[in-house]
């Protein structure tokens, strides 16, 4: 699995300390940027389907927003869930503003992640018989592009970032029960699009 590992109590207290020191000195905020920029960059690219330059602009907005709202950080939540929530909202806003979809990303790292995601879903959904690895490698970008951003987000958070249902619920601001339903629908939709693509 790529991205952030599941939140541990130690990680949580480290993040809480980072927030406290960032409120005292803006320079300390650099440590938060350093820690989260790569996982968030990957998440934003997956959801917003933005180019590298555009992703950097979105990321800047995310960190500025995070800094301005540091006092709104709910200590009861994992900081990573909170900052991912900001990243998610910014990515969705970007998609709405640009009305872009279907843009495949020409990034080998991204493709590897996507392939891993596709394989996990395929194994989970027992699709191996119908969709072989070669086919997935070739078409995973196209399949993901056609997925609803909400489905892309829930699949990425669960299968790439290895997030728990509760964390995904905190990031997407939806009840935990709804996350299970969303995940089920996302996998079903992934399968439907994959099968449709294969027929073409």
């Amino acid at each position, binding site marked *: 699995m790529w991205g952030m590992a599941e939140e541990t109590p130690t990680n949580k207290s480290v993040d809480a300390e980072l927030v406290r020191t960032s409120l005292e000195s803006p320079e300390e905020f650099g440590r938060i940027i350093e820690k989260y920029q790569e996982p968030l960059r990957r998440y934003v690219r997956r959801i917003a389907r933005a180019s590298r330059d555009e992703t950097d602009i979105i990321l800047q907005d995310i960190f500025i927003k995070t*800094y*301005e709202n540091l006092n*709104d950080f709910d200590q009861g939540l994992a900081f990573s869930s909170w900052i991912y929530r900001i990243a998610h909202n910014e990515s969705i806003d970007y998609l709405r503003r640009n009305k872009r979809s279907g843009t495949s990303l020409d990034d080998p790292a991204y493709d590897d992640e996507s392939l891993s995601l596709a394989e996990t879903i395929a194994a989970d959904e027992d699709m191996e018989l119908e969709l072989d690895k070669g086919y997935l490698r070739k078409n995973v970008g196209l399949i993901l592009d056609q997925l609803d951003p909400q489905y892309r987000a829930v699949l990425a958070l669960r299968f790439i970032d290895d997030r728990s249902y509760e964390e995904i619920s905190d990031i997407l601001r939806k009840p935990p029960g709804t996350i299970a339903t969303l995940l089920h629908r996302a996998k079903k939709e992934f399968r439907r699009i994959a099968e449709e693509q294969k027929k073409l």
Partner: protein
Amino acid sequence: MTFEQKILDQIKTKHLKPLSKGYFKTRDLALWGLLVVFVAALGVGVGMIIYGIRSTNLSVLAKLELTLSQKALFFFPVFWILACAVIATVAFINLRKTRRGYRVTARQFIIIAALVAVGVGSIVYALNVTQYLSRVAANRIPLYKDVVAPNTSTWLDPNHGLLSGVIRSRDSDTSFYVRDSEAVLWHVTGDDMIIPTGYIMQTGERIKIIGKRTGDDAFTAREIHPWSSN
């Protein structure tokens, strides 16, 4: 320049600062305050529904010449039921905006909101608040009696076959004039009126009539009851 330095530079040059804790506390308080207002409004709405249903005289309703759907509209305080649905929806959207409100499912909200609204509504009804509000609304808001709560003003609703007032003059036992509480003088007629045994109508007496409106100020009576009867 690294990405991290770029952002820190932006923070410095634009003199950006974290928004104060007070700002977020005020926002949270406003959201919860609104929720309390919505719950109170929901309670009043449910109280009005209870009042509306309890105000309907079922024996009178059965005698009215109305279709089943008209009777249902007459019996159920539709306006308040719709108002409660709108208030509950807005309250749910508001709850979702609070810090942890997103964890509450629509089903959980419906159960909690129904329990709270019925509890508050019963208290509001028991304290006679709904009766008072209904009277004030009926007196001050045009069409309230006819459209919103026809059943709460049961005995003055000619369009639904109910009339009450004081007998002003009589041509005969089957033709007389009644002035209602809104000062309209009605010509009441009826050849086959049912009158309680032993009851004799007299000028100046207040009566209740069940029948049908036949004109702007004309009414055909089927039943006549003294005002004091149930």
